[in-house]
């Protein structure tokens, strides 16, 4: 039983982690909590479903790539429409926050309008195959999700360390004005960071619906808050923090709902978050900001 819970925790943790990386990426650059990230999670799942049923028919891979591109575009457009005008005016983040809430409402309502609120079947990979992992019954899709998350974490750490654009993003997170002075295309880079964040949300959205083998419009609501909590738990702004935070949260939740009750598990996830923040305000991996006078 314990092992089963751990495996469930790992796969759910991966879902949280993927979305959390998106939150963390954008936060580290703009110190902005991008509320529309959860809406992109839902929108990309709906786009995948729409593409799968209408255009590309059978091949999951092609649909997945198209969805990723669409999600990247959505992320870029969100940045241009909702965030850039405010950011360039140098206004405080609260205003960018409100416009990202506006975008969240718009995206959610469009999905609601077009998709309807009925549940629908969602294609999945290697359906029905179960592997007996030391007595814990894990479905193939769970393994795939865990592996993809680890690969993406590897890719992201490579991307931010060695790739030119990735290093640009990391530079941005240190000091945007300096990047301006260095002649870096700050606006496009921030646009790319939104696009990357959205793509990550798309991956986790589609993966989650594949795990559930079905899709409905309320799929994003629970995940949005939890992923956000995971980002903070791991230390906001730290990519590996988002992943570790996601896993800790998911495993704790599954343990509690396994041995106690599901409604208690929500208590636990937010309870842990507050406890960690009180003990170490910047989260597990976060660096303590020096109080400069």
């Amino acid at each position, binding site marked *: *039983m314990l092992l*089963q*819970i751990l495996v*469930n925790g790992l796969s*759910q943790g991966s879902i949280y982690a993927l979305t959390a990386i998106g939150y963390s990426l954008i936060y580290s650059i703009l110190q902005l909590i991008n509320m529309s990230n959860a809406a992109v999670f839902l929108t990309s799942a709906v786009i995948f479903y729409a593409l799968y049923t209408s255009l590309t028919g059978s091949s999951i891979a092609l649909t997945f790539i198209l969805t990723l591109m669409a999600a990247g575009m959505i992320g870029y457009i969100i940045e241009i429409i909702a965030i850039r005008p405010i950011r360039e005016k140098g206004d405080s983040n609260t205003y960018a926050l409100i416009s990202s809430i506006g975008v969240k409402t718009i995206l959610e*309502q469009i999905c*609601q*309008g077009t998709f*309807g*609120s*009925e*549940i*629908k*079947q969602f294609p999945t990979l290697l359906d029905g195959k*179960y592997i007996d992992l030391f007595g814990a*019954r894990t*479905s193939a899709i769970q393994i795939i999700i865990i592996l993809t998350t680890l690969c993406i974490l590897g890719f992201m750490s490579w991307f931010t360390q060695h790739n030119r654009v990735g290093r640009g993003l990391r530079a941005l997170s240190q000091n945007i004005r300096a990047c301006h002075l260095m002649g870096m295309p700050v606006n496009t880079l921030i646009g790319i960071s939104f696009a990357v964040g959205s793509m990550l949300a798309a991956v986790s959205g589609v993966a*989650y619906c594949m*795990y*559930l*083998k*079905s899709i*409905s*419009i*309320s*799929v994003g*609501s*629970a995940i949005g808050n939890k992923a956000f909590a995971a980002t903070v738990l791991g230390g906001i702004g730290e990519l590996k923090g988002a992943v570790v935070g996601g896993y800790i949260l998911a495993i704790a*939740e*599954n343990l509690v*709902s*396994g*041995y106690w*009750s*599901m*409604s208690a*598990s*929500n208590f636990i996830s937010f309870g842990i978050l507050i406890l960690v923040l009180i003990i170490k305000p910047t989260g597990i991996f976060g660096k303590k900001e020096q109080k400069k006078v």
Partner: protein
Amino acid sequence: MKKFLSLLLISMMIFMVAGCSNGGNGGGGEEKAETAADANGDYHIAVSLPFTGTNASYAEYIQMGLEVGLKKLEKDGWLNGDGTGKIILDYFDDKNDATEGATIAEKIVASSDPYYLLEIGSFASGVSYPCATIYRDAEVPQYALTCSKSDFLPTSGDWGFSLSVTQDTAAARVAAYDIEYLGKKNIALIYSSDSWGLETCKYYTETAEKLGVTLLASEKYEDGQQDFTSILTKIKETNPELVMCFCAENDIVLIRQQAETVGLECDWQVSSKSRTSNVLQNLGDLGENLYGVYARTKDLKDPVYIEYEELYKELYAAKFAEDNNTTQKYADQGYNCMLTTIWAIKNGGTTRQAFRDQLATLKDFPGVQGPISFGPGRRVLQTQYLSQIVRNEAGELKWVNYEDILNTFDVDAVAGLK
């Protein structure tokens, strides 16, 4: 430029406050018109349903049922038979939110042009409840067709109506079927944590105790929950014979699929709320032998049903085909609601008070789900049968009703309702 924009916005706002009146003159339509019909003899009915938000699909089905009912009336030449006396429906979207629902209720009550004869109420009891006091005070009939909370009718004074069996009766009957008829003794329960889930779970447990069965586990889940693996793992430990689910149809699909991943083998029972074609379709083979409860006599030879199905296909052919040639459960209830409303108006219910009195006397009305009548306190007297997804000879999975069950098994007596 900015100054112009600010003045534009502020003036727009003042215009909006005035614009909100949409024709309603001051003081609202309190005066008792001797007939609710407007200038050209048509009757206006307000419909407040959650067209956006979580229960949006149910709202659409009810709307389909109402429209099919209107189509039937149109075929019979409207109310007076000669093309006059139309019924006009005004739809409102309450977003499944109590505050929104109450605001709409005030709008309906206050509006004198169009003057609403009655209001066909919201889907969830959480939204119909705050409106009940508003309609009771303004003496406007509230037809909350899907409200199944036991104390909704008393709260709405004598102006509230509902077409669905109250939770206490429905839950007791399901328990009786599971324990006595199907002979299941080891039962686990999964229920949604909204007011409907809580109440049905309470009555189900009570009846089970009366019949000497204590539940192995009863697990509550928060709405919006998608991943049930932890609950199902826990229930698997208690290895039950039957799992009873008081959940919405979307959740049943998730639970049944995830039970497969967790490896929980047992029988499954759902309440009437999720005994729908949608569940049938989504579950596919997993749905086999899924028990359900249903009030409908799927008697294809029943003329009322045949006429309903024709009109339904005429208006919603694509949806009909998509649901492999069955009409949606909530559309049937919408249709029943429309038929009973038309019947009440035709038999003298032309003012709000008259309509209320007339509708309260409903007895053995030939509805699509068999005869409907309002017992004492306007509670719906309707029998409910056990039903199951069974593979017919052609190998297709279909919902089947065990209608002859009542000849050998008096469910109400067993459930202690008599």
